[in-house]
């Protein structure tokens, strides 16, 4: 097997090593990759999915509360929790998480949640009249944007 590690005498690093053996070990170090394309697809879908559901909950908050539908708002929040749990279950299917993923995701998630909080605050400070649907749709898209950018960065990690 190519690059298979062993503890045989004379294999790289097993004793005083030569320059050639050191180069061979460095080749092994740069050649081992645990993250599969499937893992990346799962992680990209997870990050983008978080953006979509946070954007959706912003829109649904407006759509339900602007017409006084508190039950609809509660249902949409429940759906949000279910969707988030589903996404976390999908994420857990990735067998390896590439280095830097968690940092990129955290930044994207915090930025998206910050925009969500700003959006909700703005919507509820403009209740008479409530903002139009088109405005809220745009706000929702902007809210999801950090997670979409994070998903694109995770996708790029595969090519790096």
């Amino acid at each position: 097997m190519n690059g298979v590690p062993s503890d045989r005498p004379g294999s790289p690093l097993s004793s005083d090593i030569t320059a050639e053996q050191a180069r061979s070990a460095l080749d092994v170090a740069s050649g081992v990759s645990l993250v599969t394309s499937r893992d990346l697809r799962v992680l990209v879908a997870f990050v983008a999915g978080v953006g979509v559901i946070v954007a959706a909950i912003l829109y649904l908050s407006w759509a339900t509360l602007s017409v006084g539908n508190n039950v609809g708002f509660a249902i949409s929040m429940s759906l949000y929790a279910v969707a988030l749990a589903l996404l976390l279950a999908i994420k857990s299917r990735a067998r390896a998480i590439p280095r830097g993923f968690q940092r990129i995701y955290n930044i994207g998630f915090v930025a998206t949640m910050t925009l969500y909080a700003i959006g909700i605050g703005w919507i509820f400070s403009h209740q008479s009249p409530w903002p139009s649907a088109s405005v809220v749709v745009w706000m929702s898209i902007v809210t999801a944007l950090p997670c979409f950018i994070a998903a694109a960065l995770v996708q790029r990690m595969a090519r790096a």
Partner: protein
Amino acid sequence: MTDQQQHARFRLDEVIHAPVRFSIVAALARVDQAEFAAVRDGVQVSDSVLSKQVTLLERAGYVEVKKGYVGKRPRTWLTLTSVGEAAFNEHLLALRAIAGS
């Protein structure tokens, strides 16, 4: 004799020195975390060999082992610690110095 005067081979890490452990650490250095099975497949060793080597790396403080469940299935996750990452980087520097000499 100062560190700078020592031959680079003296800076090779004794724990990472062994080929299997070197491959495990090299693999973990490129991920935030990985499942035991992913490391086993990537490094191409048996469960028992990986388990034994991971235990040694864990004792050295180089690898953190977390156990959990995905659904009802048990999973073991491996993470290179900051100590392990520093040791691996130092080991790579020594290797590069040897390779370049």
